[in-house]
């Protein structure tokens, strides 16, 4: 090789090696060891991994969870925006499935209108599944939605650009577009309550204990017991989203 060219290549490589740390410092790659934000109350997010259990056999479809969620989280009081909602499944004698959710279950449910006999019927409360593998976070172009160290999927509504990709991406239909703020919105698992050591509002008001809240792994919490004592399933397991909302006594018809 030409000695001049060799020297030039060597110098250029050295300059690169010297400049790299500077560039990295500027770009600030995420710290490998994620540390939870130490809240003022000494809350450490890395010590938790939250999930919810829902027992279909206990749900009476009163819709108090829907009303409580709307009040707690300032969700618009119309029939189109819900962090959590309740669906009613009615399966008639022919095996035909009817699913309805009048006003999300906010006002309770009138008796089902069916011509044929009901074979079985039940209520399914739904909410954001707080997936460990969230497709909504994957598609966000600006990093406005994210999983916290304690496993809650949140939206940074000062950073969201309102492109609605995440609403399209959610296979559970759990996200909605806030008409006033013009950003994506969703269930926060009442994160502001979790950091104070409280349970989400929907769990607090559930009169039959159909909703259970706690830690997913290795902790003696109500959810650990719920998962141990019931055959639990998740919604749409084939999508590999790894939801953290576990359903007990879930019917095969539920989508």
């Amino acid at each position, binding site marked *: 090789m030409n000695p001049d060219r060799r020297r030039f290549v060597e110098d250029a490589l050295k300059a690169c090696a010297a400049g790299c740390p500077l560039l990295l410092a500027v770009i600030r790659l*995420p710290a490998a060891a994620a540390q939870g934000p130490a809240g003022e109350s000494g809350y450490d997010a890395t010590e938790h991994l939250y999930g919810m259990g829902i027992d279909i056999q*206990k749900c009476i479809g009163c819709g108090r969870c829907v009303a409580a969620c709307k009040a707690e989280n300032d969700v618009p009081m119309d029939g189109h925006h819900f962090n959590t909602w309740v669906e009613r499944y009615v399966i008639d004698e022919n095996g035909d499935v009817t699913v309805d959710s009048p006003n999300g279950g906010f006002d309770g449910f009138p008796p*089902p209108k069916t011509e044929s006999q009901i074979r079985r019927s*039940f209520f399914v409360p739904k909410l954001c599944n707080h997936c460990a593998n969230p497709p909504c976070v994957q598609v966000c172009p600006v990093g406005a939605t994210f999983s916290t160290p304690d496993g809650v999927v*949140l939206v940074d509504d*000062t950073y969201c650009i309102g492109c609605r990709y995440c609403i399209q991406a959610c296979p559970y239909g759990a996200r909605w577009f806030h008409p006033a703020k013009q950003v994506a919105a969703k269930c926060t698992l009442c994160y502001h309550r979790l950091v104070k050591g409280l349970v989400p*509002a929907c769990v607090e*008001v559930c*009169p039959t204990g159909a909703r259970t809240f706690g830690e997913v792994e290795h902790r003696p919490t109500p959810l650990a017991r719920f998962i141990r004592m019931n055959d639990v399933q998740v919604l749409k397991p084939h999508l590999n989203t790894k939801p953290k909302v576990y359903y007990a006594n879930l019917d095969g018809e539920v989508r």
Partner: protein
Amino acid sequence: MKLPQQVVHLGAVFAVAVAALVVARTLLVPTTFGDLGHYRAAAIDSIAAHPKKYAGHQECALCHDDLAAKRAAGNHRGVACEVCHGPQQAHVDAPLDVKPPAPRDRGFCPLCHAYNPSRPTGFPQIDPVAHNPLTPCITCHDPHAPVPPAVPQECGACHGQIERQKALSHHANLPCVTCHQVPQQHKVTPRGVRPTKPEDRAFCGRCHAEGASGRAEAPRISLAEHNPRYLCWQCHYPHDPKTQ
């Protein structure tokens, strides 16, 4: 070594580009972006600072310990206070200024207790149309420790039609023995020993005369002016007083 001039120029262009990148990132990227991942870590704190509206039943029990103990021992032990009374953090913050509402009409309880075939079997349910219409639920049921009220099954076993009709009427809450005295022997020899019946207008007047004591919603009439020549039950059927 002397660098060729075009390399120097290129270097200058690169330096300007890198400087522009540094300036743009400093100005545009929020300070905490990337601390925990590809997002603004400060967003977690701002979401966590959202004020709560539901205080939680533990807060209620701090002052209302009597009601909390009653609830914890009854059939509503799993029903948190704010299910019926609504979000009450404001009441916790200013107990004297904000008073919690209590649902006293018939519209609220059926949210859980109206019959619905989708509800789990065994959950206590009633038909709100047929079940003691117009009577507020709390007349018979204590919402803090509800139990099914004692039904006079003894009378209904034979007088089922009267019982069913009375259950739909304004007299639904009156036990049979309000108007009939039933000797024990009536159950053994029903035709031999009969229960008493009211005999005069004054009996109905104990509730329905002007100035009578008793429930305020019972309609009042003047016994002297209201068709004085007739007995009450010649026009009003006592088991369903709306019927004329």
